[in-house]
């Protein structure tokens, strides 16, 4: 178990979300410390995406609290959370299809640099924005595809583009919702390498089914089943936890 740090980047306290009678998030509490990569795993329907949606603000929790760098952000809309340094990727690719890869990222940079209530001057010629965007694209090895419309990128490239958008936001906390979903083994490997490179720069929460990725990357792992945290701890400890073995990991880890 990692030592508790006084002021975690993300602190979730007793979060609950129910749709009608169905409890999807059932009293989840967890911390993510600076520079830590915290993986959340669990079977389908365990409530992982629901949890991410509540943290990023697209879904309102029924009760509980979310703190970002010690500030209560539970009631803030998504855009205000983003302003405070929360970035996310989506399980189902969510980019701007009719914009080039570069512009997708440049928009994220633009959100962080100066007002967007500027009505004259061509945004696509602002070199400050484009340079920063290019840098983010380079970090995910997508720089050679900068001018391609996002709609025309391959699936794996779109996943990488999502990551670049998140990077361009200079996040304090990055929520990754199954970044490997639907990518082939080669692309997965590539993404793992990219994430490894990014590790430590900011706190990350990784929801992922790909156990290779999870155990290669995570500092800590929480196992979510039926909306509850079943176990939480260092990868080795979680791997050894008999409850986890039976509930989830059993087959995949011998």
């Amino acid at each position, binding site marked *: 178990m990692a030592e508790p740090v006084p002021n975690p980047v993300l602190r979730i306290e007793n979060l609950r979300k129910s749709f009608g009678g169905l409890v999807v998030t059932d009293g989840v509490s967890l911390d993510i410390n600076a520079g830590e990569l915290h993986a959340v795993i669990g079977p389908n329907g365990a409530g992982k995406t629901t949890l991410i949606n509540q943290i*990023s*603000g*697209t879904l309102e929790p029924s009760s509980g609290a979310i703190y970002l760098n010690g500030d209560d952000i539970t009631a803030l*809309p*998504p*855009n*205000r959370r*983003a*302003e405070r340094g929360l*970035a*996310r990727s*989506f399980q189902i690719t*969510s*980019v*701007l*299809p*009719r*914009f*080039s890869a570069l*512009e997708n990222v*440049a*928009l*994220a940079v*633009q*959100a*962080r640099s*100066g*007002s*967007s*209530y*500027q*009505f*004259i*001057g*061509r*945004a*696509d010629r*602002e070199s400050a924005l484009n340079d920063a965007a290019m840098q983010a694209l380079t970090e995910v090895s997508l720089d050679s595809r900068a001018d391609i*419309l996002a709609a025309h990128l391959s699936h794996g490239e779109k996943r990488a583009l999502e990551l670049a*958008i998140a990077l361009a*936001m200079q996040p304090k906390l990055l929520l990754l919702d199954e970044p490997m979903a639907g990518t082939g083994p080669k692309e997965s490997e590539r993404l793992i390498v990219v994430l490894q490179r990014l590790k430590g720069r900011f706190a990350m929460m990784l929801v992922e089914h790909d156990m290779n990725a999870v155990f290669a990357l995570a500092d800590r792992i929480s196992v979510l089943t039926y909306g509850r945290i079943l176990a939480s701890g260092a990868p080795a400890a979680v791997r050894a936890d008999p409850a986890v073995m039976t509930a989830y990991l059993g087959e995949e880890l011998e």
Partner: protein
Amino acid sequence: MSLAVTSTSRGRHYEALPVAIFLVLALAPLAAAFGAETYLLGLFTRVMIYGIAALALDFICGYGGLVSFGHAAFVGIGAYTAGIFSAHGITDMAITLPVALLVSALFAWLTGTVCLRTKSVYFIMITLAFGQMIYFVAGSLSPYGGDDGMTLKLRSTLFGFPVLQNDRALYYAVLVFLLASYLLCRAIVASRFGRVFRGARDNPTRMATIGYDVFRYQRVAYVIAGCLGGLSGFLLANATEFVSPSFMSWQRSGELIIMVLFGGIGTLHGAIVGAAAFLLLEDMLGGITENWKLIFGPMLVLIVLFARGGLLGLTQSLWERLRRG
């Protein structure tokens, strides 16, 4: 929205078209002098005035994905501002035009606050409803002609000078306003603001998670479009020297959408072409039979069913097919 044409990656050959459009508009009065001048001048003045309103609609519709079915409301507001001032003897556009724009902006801000909290079909229906509201309000203004409308005593003046009295002067004034509106919209679309606005069309959730308050950007754009609609109405009142609730009937809003559609959504200059196409067609068909809507209605259906991308899209695809042989 499958109709919307990609706006960011337009080919260069499109650039010649706007230039040609404005050249034609600038030279039209000279040509008109050889023909039925009053008629042609009047027709083209109307084309340009509706062009401004259609341009504004294309701006929010084609670049923001906001299909407003109540855009004629702004035309009406602009026209009635000019009309009501004129009824009280105030015609100086140094006063009346800013007020017309302000009232339009206010109406856009208020109704936009409600409309933009909703999406797609809701947005269509609610803008339609607010448009109808203004229509009925105008009809209930008995001091200003009620349902029948009223004639303007005088066209707008500028610092006391009757600058719009001459039809040709009015024509060129309208042309200047159209050009300014066009350039403004083009600049905005390419600007930082426009990029956010366009992004919100593509993927509002993504834009919100990047950190943009999509609603506020859309509302500002809606206000801009409202102002341009108001400008169009203000000019329309001057051109026809008449205002009436029919300026803002829901059919008018529909016609504005049709103009945008005719020209090809998301091109800006297409809206001007669309306005011209619509008004000329109306004139032509109207010349053949008074029941021209019997022809025009089915035409619309056919265009939707078979010609995606508007007239410009259609001619463009024909052109490409020709060039390929």
